[in-house]
């Protein structure tokens, strides 16, 4: 397999990695794949947060809908505040994850080293993983203006303006999800219906809440159906800048 970049040497030759099986396109030098699980986890947590953001934005739109009712019909506790709060929380969480991104990687690195021989170029590999996360954020920005949405001061605008912007974010980010993942609910039953949790369930797929007693299999009300993806098909990032992470979005300059 020979797949080349342009003239200068590439990051990829040394730090390329392979995503598990599903990708039809493999970047060159893809035999070392030690960072893969971390990157996937990061990508998935980003997606999860993104979904929360999307849901909150949607909830907000719904709320806007309610507010459009004649004054006498307005509910007392505005759902708008609630969803704004949810959106705020989501933003905080996203920022937290962004800030913590380096955290888990550096914490896990020594553990991993104890298990296997020292990876050849850990610095480069980490950098490649980080570059891919930044590039994914770049995708959400390019298609769905997510970074613009989150970095703007939301308090300065009214709900109609926020609602209009949310539509841009929703349409674009949804297109990114549809293109690069295959997102499906973990459980297909209706929420609030009673379901049985499989014995020996995967801990990342189920979270049991409330009163836990007795023997598995457990049964209970499905509060949230969960989400998972079987496919991650992100573009390969070839040849990033050598001494920094790639830009999330370029500065645009129009020439006349």
């Amino acid at each position, binding site marked *: 397999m020979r797949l*080349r970049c342009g003239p200068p040497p590439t990051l990829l030759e040394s730090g390329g990695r392979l995503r598990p099986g599903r990708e*039809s396109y493999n970047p060159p030098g893809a035999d070392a794949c030690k960072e893969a699980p971390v990157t996937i986890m990061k990508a998935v947590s980003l997606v999860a947060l993104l979904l929360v953001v999307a849901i909150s934005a949607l909830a907000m739109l719904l709320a806007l809908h309610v507010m459009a009712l004649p004054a006498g019909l307005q509910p007392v506790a505005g759902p708008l505040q609630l969803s704004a709060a949810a959106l705020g929380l989501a933003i905080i969480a996203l920022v937290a994850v962004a800030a913590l991104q380096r955290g888990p990687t550096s914490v896990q690195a020594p553990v991993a080293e104890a298990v296997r021989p020292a990876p050849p170029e850990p610095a480069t590999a980490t950098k490649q993983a980080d570059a891919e996360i930044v590039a994914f954020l770049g995708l959400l920005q390019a298609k769905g203006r997510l970074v613009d949405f989150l970095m703007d001061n939301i308090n300065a605008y009214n709900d*109609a303006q926020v609602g209009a912007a949310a539509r841009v974010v929703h349409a674009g980010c949804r297109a990114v999800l549809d293109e690069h993942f295959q997102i499906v609910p973990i459980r297909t039953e209706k929420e609030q219906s009673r379901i049985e949790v499989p014995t020996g369930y995967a801990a990342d797929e189920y979270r049991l809440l409330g009163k836990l007693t007795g023997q598995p299999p457990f049964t209970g009300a499905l509060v949230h159906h969960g989400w998972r993806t079987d496919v991650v098909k992100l573009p*390969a990032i*070839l*040849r990033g800048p050598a001494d920094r992470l790639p830009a999330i979005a370029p500065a645009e300059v129009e020439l006349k």
Partner: protein
Amino acid sequence: MTARFSLGIDLGTSNSAIAVSDLDSDQTRVIDVAQIVGVNQIGTRQTLASALYLPHPDEFPGGLATPWADPGEAGFVGQFARDHGALVPDRLVTSAKSWLSHPHIDARQPLLPWGSEIETKLSPFDCSRRYLTHLRQAFLQAERDQGRERDLADGQIVLTVPASFDEVARSLTAEAARAAGLGDVVLLEEPQAAFYAWTAQTGRAWHDLVSPGDIILVCDIGGGTADFSLIAVTDRQGTLELERISVGEHILLGGDNMDLALAYTVQSRLEDAGKPLDSWQFLSLVHAASRAKITLFEDASLSSAPIAIPSRGSSLFASTIATELDRATLDQVVLDGFLARTGLEDLPQEGRRGGLQEFGLPYASDPVISKHLARFLTRSLQNVRASEALSALVGDRANGAALMPTAVLFNGGVFKAEPVRARVLDLLASWNSGQPIRELLGAEPDLAVARGAAIYGRHRATGTGMRIKAGAARSYYVGLESAGLAVPGMKPKVKALCVVPQGMQEGSELLIEGRDFGLVTGRPAEFRFFSSAIRSGDTPGLILPDAERELEETSLLEIEIPALDDMPAGQVVPVRIDAAVTELGVLELWMKHVNSDRRWKIEFQVRTE
């Protein structure tokens, strides 16, 4: 050569795709195409955007990462070329394929991007070669990644062209494929490919879904072009036989026109409301309107779909414009605008021609697809009536005002929307005195052509499976200057000699007997070349009195014969015309010396000016 696989290539006007069929299994797979999707980003897509971006020499300092070693050709192809080029239109080449079939340009001249003044331009031929080169590399790379090292010499390669392409555009396409390293490819008409895909998708059941006497309309509307064909089903000793009996004209009208029309409608409303859009916002409006269209067409319960248009700056909240597309507007613009319920006698309007026109692609001047379809069905009847064999084939159906199909197969992205299919079916039924026309349910209208091409390649390589009888889609003629007295103010009429009859089969050759022509030796000689898609009855050797009135001029033919040893330059030698359609479906014309075995091939030359 024993082929081990068959590769189908759909070189589309706006998107291209490839599919491969292994001959030792019965699987046909669409191959994802690796392409540049962003600065330093390579991704795969089911289709390759047929767009080529020619960067400024100082744009992208350090160069862009490419999916494979680049031989150093100018520009790049694919998704990023289209996305980025949309904002730098001077440097973006699109619709190269339509330029390849342009009747008045030389496709080998560096003309694209059209009307732009950038330092290096490319010819329509080179652009097609670049797309095909990209597809070839993407195929080899994708197979290599799966552990298969493919040799193209082991493959049957089928490249699709619009049925409306004339011989010049076909041979340019075949030559572009050779120049792209694909070797000698077999050409297949896109509507036929869509039909092969449909038969493969339905399996054996297709035999039950059509029956002798059926006439199937393949209605293929892509992003930028509409292409129609009719296929007749007959019974020959108990087996179904299919024959392509008519092809349409090259119509530059498609789904992109619909999206643009929607965007213009929404834009003018916004302007009335005091919200003007800049060109960047207009582009995002086109995308948003297209999404809203899909939403409304997919969910009949919605009465409107929201549209939000962001501004260019980083503040999303301050300047996003919110509006909506309502169903009445959608129906009015797309269904009633492009697929109006017009009568069968209502044919496309020729646009009023101003004295001076801007030269460009010959876009359809009438946007109503219904009228183009009516014209196609009317012309098809004319074509069928011109030949006894075809008249016998369609029987009673030749009696109406147009040749009405009994079933329709839709292809192209536009027909993903059920209401659009329903409207066309409605329209056809209204032309068929209320009798409904069946729909043959296809799948994956974006990928069916590539898939069908691979399946046809399999049938061809293995000698099994159904083949549509097709042959030459048009009849071809060489112009003869008539010898006559010169009359001031009267241009002498050009006669036309039929050299290739419609339906002439692949791998056949015919000599026009009993008629010798004088050919000048020692200096170049030029011939005018004409064609027609509606004269199925013309036989080789037939002479039409007025070529310009009855036929379409296709190109110039050129031949230069060195002076024969024993004759002075300028000597006229007697020749006969010999026409062949090669196994690959390419038309060849030869001049055969009457008194010796010598013969000379005539090359298709530049388009007429």
